[in-house]
């Protein structure tokens, strides 16, 4: 029995060709765990349902076979474009690849946000230039549109054939499984985070494909032993060839908005005042700050990895080595980005906290920042955007931070009570964790008058690149406080000036408890439900931007209909929702 299955996917999208001036569609092979697939394919985490609602056609479920053979190895372009079974394989393989990256980085299984184990992937869902994850439908829907280009090879553009789009949507689904509270109304950082995080994971995932990086670095190169000029491996040159290059490769019809978003994220001149600038308050603009910082850090680390290579005499270096360094940098950074989620607060996330989470996650596995200084690069790139560890921005209440920007152990940890708490039970039982939290509410400064619930208890086993094992248990709790606006003053929270006193408002708080292998609390990363400054800012943002549910309540939801939240987020990004001036 094989442990792995190798499947052909389209490397980016069908417009990206293997040769410098055309040629076949550029494909690649990905390796995912072997599983006994049913028709669909339908595996232990993913079920491809090929039903087209626009024309009410149900395609025969694809059989990828039990023998792990790749049916589409070396398939002609025509087959890749016109065989729905290949489309089913493409979405299955890419989503499984992203899922495996998450599980590798987090050291545990990652659940979807809904009750169920298999997410539905619908590769030809409807005729629309959109692809979206829908949590209430337990699905990711991929649309298709006719091309407007008469010279295109195929009259239809399929979003299910774009590596970047499939990985982006899979990331939304996985992030929602890990932190479903990140879709709650918060401030501009959290609003921009889902989209930016999905972009970053999708891009680093694409940069983890050697064929893509090779093609972007040296579009005219054909042979594996080719050399590349050193002048093309400088920061600006890499930015042009790799980041802009990929933006250019995004398909015209369905990725054009993503293309301009990527272009803009790279083009944006760093601005330390951006976090306070109203121009960056809109969620997609905000998200570009995060994308820009991480993508530039990626280039910096890549260059750092090639330092010894570039110091050798001569004007050029082996292309393959440069490609491999790029792929390795992308993969390491991708692991860091995903792992950071465990060290982020549960609600009201700020980019500064994400940076601290990134640094902490990496520090836990590689205390000395290794040879390639990933953490230095991230600190530097975030600082260019005015984002430093939280205490610099006045969020000192969120947690304590060491000099190098990582979370510190809990204040007064010697006062924490473990009497009566069973260490083994603390690794898996939400009630045990709640008991720990309640017993220690004063030491941990947890507001006891809010409804408090343990969301998850997740034991993890992570392996660092140097072979070290790190065992941890990650547990999350959420706090909810429903008030009228005029009750805010009791918590010293400023009510938005013009908000009527009887307006219902909801405050969220919560935290992550990270226990070490002895079930001792190592980190407590929280957003306090009674943090007057943070809650006041959040409500001011929601009020200013009219973010409320359909009953006019603030803080609960943005009013999107069930299942439409992510679809609407994309439509807003693409400027496809009408401007609203008068309320209903």
């Amino acid at each position, binding site marked *: 029995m094989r442990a792995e299955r190798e499947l052909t996917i389209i490397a980016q999208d069908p417009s990206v060709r293997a040769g410098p001036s055309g040629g076949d569609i550029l494909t690649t092979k990905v390796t995912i765990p072997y599983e006994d697939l049913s028709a669909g394919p339908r595996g232990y985490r993913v079920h491809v*349902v090929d039903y087209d609602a626009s024309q*009410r056609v149900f*395609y025969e479920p694809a059989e990828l076979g039990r023998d792990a053979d790749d049916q589409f190895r070396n398939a002609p372009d025509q087959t890749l474009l016109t065989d729905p079974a290949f489309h089913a394989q493409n979405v299955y393989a890419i989503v499984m690849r992203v899922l495996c990256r998450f599980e590798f980085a987090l050291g545990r299984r990652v659940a979807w946000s809904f009750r169920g184990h298999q997410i539905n992937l619908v590769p030809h869902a409807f005729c629309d230039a959109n692809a979206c994850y829908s949590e209430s439908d337990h699905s990711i829907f991929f649309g*298709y549109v*006719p091309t407007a280009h008469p010279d295109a090879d195929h009259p239809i553009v399929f979003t299910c054939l774009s590596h970047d789009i499939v990985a982006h949507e899979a990331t939304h689904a996985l992030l929602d499984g890990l932190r479903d509270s990140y879709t709650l109304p918060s401030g501009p950082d959290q609003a921009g985070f889902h989209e930016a995080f999905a972009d970053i994971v999708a891009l680093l995932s694409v940069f983890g494909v050697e064929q893509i990086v090779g093609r972007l670095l040296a579009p005219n190169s054909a042979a594996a032993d080719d050399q590349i000029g050193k002048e093309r491996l400088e920061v600006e040159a890499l930015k042009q060839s790799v980041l802009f290059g990929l933006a250019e490769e995004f398909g015209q019809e369905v990725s054009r908005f993503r293309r301009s978003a990527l272009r803009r994220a790279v083009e944006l001149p760093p601005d330390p005042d951006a976090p306070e600038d109203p121009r960056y308050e809109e969620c997609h603009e905000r998200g570009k700050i995060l994308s820009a910082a991480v993508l530039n850090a990626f280039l910096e680390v890549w260059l750092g990895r090639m330092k010894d290579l570039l110091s050798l005499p001569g004007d050029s270096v082996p292309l393959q080595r440069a490609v491999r360094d790029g792929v390795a940098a992308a993969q390491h950074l991708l692991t860091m980005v995903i792992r950071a989620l465990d060290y982020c607060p549960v609600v009201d996330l700020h980019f500064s906290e994400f940076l601290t989470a990134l640094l902490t996650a990496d520090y836990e596995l590689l205390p000395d920042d290794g040879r390639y200084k990933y953490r230095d690069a991230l600190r530097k790139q975030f600082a260019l955007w005015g984002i430093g560890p939280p205490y610099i921005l006045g969020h000192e209440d969120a947690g304590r931070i060491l000099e190098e920007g990582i979370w510190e152990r809990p204040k007064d940890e010697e006062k924490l009570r473990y009497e009566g708490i069973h260490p083994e039970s603390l690794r898996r039982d939400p009630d045990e964790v709640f008991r720990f939290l309640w017993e220690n509410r004063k030491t941990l400064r947890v507001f006891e008058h809010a409804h408090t619930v343990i969301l998850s208890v997740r034991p993890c086993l992570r392996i660092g690149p140097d072979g070290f094992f790190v065992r941890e248990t990650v547990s999350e709790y959420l706090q909810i406080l429903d008030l009228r606006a005029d009750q805010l003053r009791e918590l010293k929270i400023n009510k938005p000036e013009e908000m009527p006193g009887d307006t219902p408002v909801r405050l969220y708080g919560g935290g992550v408890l990270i226990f070490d292998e002895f079930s001792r609390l190592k980190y407590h990363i929280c957003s306090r439900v009674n943090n007057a400054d943070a809650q006041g800012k959040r409500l001011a943002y929601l009020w200013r931007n009219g973010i409320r549910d359909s009953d006019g309540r603030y803080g609960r939801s943005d009013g999107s209909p069930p299942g439409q939240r992510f679809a609407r987020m994309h439509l807003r990004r693409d400027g496809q929702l009408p401007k609203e001036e008068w309320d*209903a």
Partner: protein
Amino acid sequence: MPETKPTGDVRVTMYNVGFGDCFLLSFPYDGDGDRHVLIDCGTTTEDKEWMTKVVEQIEKDCGKRLDAVVVTHRHQDHLKTFGLKGLGERLADLKPKVVVQPWTEHPKAEAQATSAPSVYGVRGLAQIRSLDAAQDFAEQLVANASRLLSAAPADLAEELVFVAEANIKNKAAVALLSHMGEEPAAAAYVHEGSESGLEEILPGVRVSVLGPPTLEDTTDIRSPADRHPTQYWELGATLAGAAATADPSLPAKSALFPGAPTLPAASAESHVRWVMDRLGRAELWNATRIVEAMNDALNNTSVILLFEVDGKALLFSGDAQWENWAWALKAPAITERLKATTLYKVGHHGSTNATPQKLWELFENRGDENTPNRLVTLLSTKEGKHHRVPRCSLVKALQADSTVRATYLWEDSDQISKTYTL
């Protein structure tokens, strides 16, 4: 035409057409009777019997003689009556001398034409083609109405069908309007800044065209034509047609992959049928959004006219939405004149973005009941039909700062019309 002067009075007659628009402007002239301009005559809620009464009333009010007809855009709630058998002809018999329509209705720029009048350019032609194909798509949705209405959520499906119905082509009305004028040359296809075509009909009244802009002016009005090219609507119509006749007990043939093996939808296992059902809802949301985008695009072809006479300024904007207005509101010379508006026909039956707040704030005659020369606003609408129209916050603002004349608030719902003299 003999030299004659307007008295300076204006009568505005508002007809109760449910969800739709129909207004008659009557300008008395010294010793020369009244000149009558009919602005729109459509509905998406009332039946032919009711509309017959409306036409009879128009005939009475204008003395069986119209001087001009303005059809702001080609939605059913603005032109349906022109296409109703018998009623269209009765309106044509009123022998208007001029029929004013937006540039997008120019017969030389028809969807199938190979060239467009130069002022509209190639982009304009593409816009018109796309709108035309979009209307075919709406037609297929309406043909599909019974299936859609059986889907959940029901209120969403109802709204989708309502909007799609307003967007289907009314070929009879379009044909009638294209040859309705007294002479063939009397059709005016207008855009912002162009002549209105009413200059000779209404001497002494300044009539300015403030919209729609052309695509040379702005691309804001282009949605969804730009995002959804003609091919999109054509494929959409084909698929919707196929879906309408698909039998779930048989394997359906795919228009995307003609040779691909398919299964009867009804044969799927229960979990897959659940996904199909959920997907049907998601598709309903998509279709609603797309039809609304198309609805917005047609609304944005609305003619905006400003009539100025003797210190009075009457603003009629059809269903122009924010993107159409944006062009006029950029021009200081126009915004200066808009400040003096004395009567405003509320755009798009009171929807969310057809009365830009920037426009509303310009009106200097807004104010409480004691305001001299207080702004009059006309709101022709029916509640609960579309998109929570009219918008509560807009109605509140209108009631606070203007004298509101609203058909849906008339005490006697059987009343056909009311006339207001300014």
